[in-house]
């Protein structure tokens, strides 16, 4: 890799972060939908859902955090798509810089933007009565899982941003990802679902990630689930990364 990789990436990261700081609405709109879901489920449906002991918002928050990330990464695809269209991408590619730093800057920007949105959502949850008995270490573990999940989905977003033909196409790919938590243990326990749905719900990545975060936040003993969650995130990330790089190489040659 080029000797300038780190400095080029940090310069380009600074550029994208400036974009975000000048359009804070992207952070807000990323957070609005998950917050709306949270309000709806806690204050409207929540009373009818039997989620076990503790307030329902405690049960719900992990799934809401994943929805936040899934809606946040559509902006990653959008920003990348605009760079490709605008010609600035070609300018960067024709300059003596480490070429892959252009992509990495977008990926790191996605991470920062999503973390800010996540903080906003957690603050709202605290106002709604969310409480956690987790230790600093357990919070760090939660952060680690969320970072891995963000990176995994971000590399999917990179594929979408690089290969989209229109702006709508660049962001539309995230819709199914946003709805994946609904067919998981994020909103209701899977036990009440009919068998085929339950089998899907229990074996898709969101359930293991949600359960791990939930156990960490409530200080429950952990089983194998965090490892399954991490394996899903890392697996998706690696596959998406190689696909994204293949698409990228085709674009730049």
């Amino acid at each position, binding site marked *: 890799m080029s000797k300038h990789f780190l400095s080029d990436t940090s310069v380009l990261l600074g*550029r994208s972060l400036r974009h975000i700081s*000048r359009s804070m609405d992207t952070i807000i709109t990323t957070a609005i939908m998950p917050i709306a879901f949270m309000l709806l489920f806690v204050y409207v449906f929540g009373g009818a859902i039997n989620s076990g002991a503790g307030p329902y918002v405690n049960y719900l928050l992990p799934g809401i955090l994943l929805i936040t990330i899934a809606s946040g990464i559509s902006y990653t695809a959008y920003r990348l798509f605009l760079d490709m269209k605008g010609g600035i991408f070609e*300018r960067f590619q024709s300059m003596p810089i480490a070429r892959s730093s252009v992509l990495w800057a977008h990926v790191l920007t996605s991470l920062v933007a999503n973390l800010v949105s996540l903080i906003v959502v957690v603050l709202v949850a605290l106002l709604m009565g969310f409480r956690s008995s987790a230790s600093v270490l357990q919070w760090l573990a939660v952060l680690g899982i969320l970072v891995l999940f963000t990176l995994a989905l971000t590399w999917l977003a990179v594929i979408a941003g690089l290969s989209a033909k229109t702006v709508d196409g660049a962001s539309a790919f995230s819709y199914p990802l946003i709805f994946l938590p609904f067919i998981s243990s994020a909103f209701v326990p899977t036990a009440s679902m009919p068998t085929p749905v339950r089998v899907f719900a229990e074996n898709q990545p969101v359930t293991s990630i949600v359960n791990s975060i939930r156990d960490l936040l409530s200080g429950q003993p952990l089983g194998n689930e965090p490892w399954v969650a991490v394996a899903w995130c890392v697996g998706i990330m690696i596959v998406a990364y190689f696909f994204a790089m293949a698409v990228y190489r085709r674009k730049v040659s």
Partner: protein
Amino acid sequence: METKQLQEPAIYVRGLEKSYKELEVLRGVDFAVDPGSIFALLGSNGAGKTTVVRILSTLLSANSGAARVNGFDVFTQGASVRESISLTGQFAAVDEILTGRENLILVAKLRHLPSPRGIAEELLERFSLIEAAARKVADYSGGMRRRLDIAMSLIGNPPIIFLDEPTTGLDPQARLEVWQMVKELSKRGTTVLLTTQYLDEAEHLADRIGILHQGKIIVNGTLAELKAMLPPAKVEYVEKQPSLEDVFLAIIGDTATTTDVTAQETGKES
């Protein structure tokens, strides 16, 4: 770097072929550009001008042929080629959300130059963008955007500059500004490869002109050589009417640039 390559052409292209699936865009393009000269690649829309520029700036691979820029092989020494060139694409490649100053600083940093701020101020001055420096580029006019675009390309003084249709979509005044800039660049010793579909642009600016047609350079020479290929001019007396462009420029009072260009034009023809 420059002295070493003085004997060699700044840009050398031989037998360049490129096709997109079934469509043959380039079918054996040959040309060479002397260091410090302006070469115009003239052709209609879709002739393949942009394809040539994209290959030379390492954004696109070719199917076959050889291409060297500043003595470096485009296909195997991409990094060195990118050190030697700057590309100004067909659409102003500027960051809309950043200010003019931030755009210049960004490029200076990416070229790993000392004191990016100083470089930005100098170029803002030179391209009369000082007043707009702190404004978002999204609010710039087409001409200002193009000026900023070209200013960004000059950062780091690359010995070779590619200008892909630099004046397409510009109003006549902005167009003259760009011509002025290109001439200044050439005076400073920069090699310029520009593509255009405007005959008068090639006529005004270029030391040599190559006409790209159906994937090949069908004619390559100086303006005088190109003119000599036609039957000798016959003398006719016609009343010299001002063109709409003359009228437009006279009314908006941009006399400085107009007279300058006309003077150079007559100089070239005499």
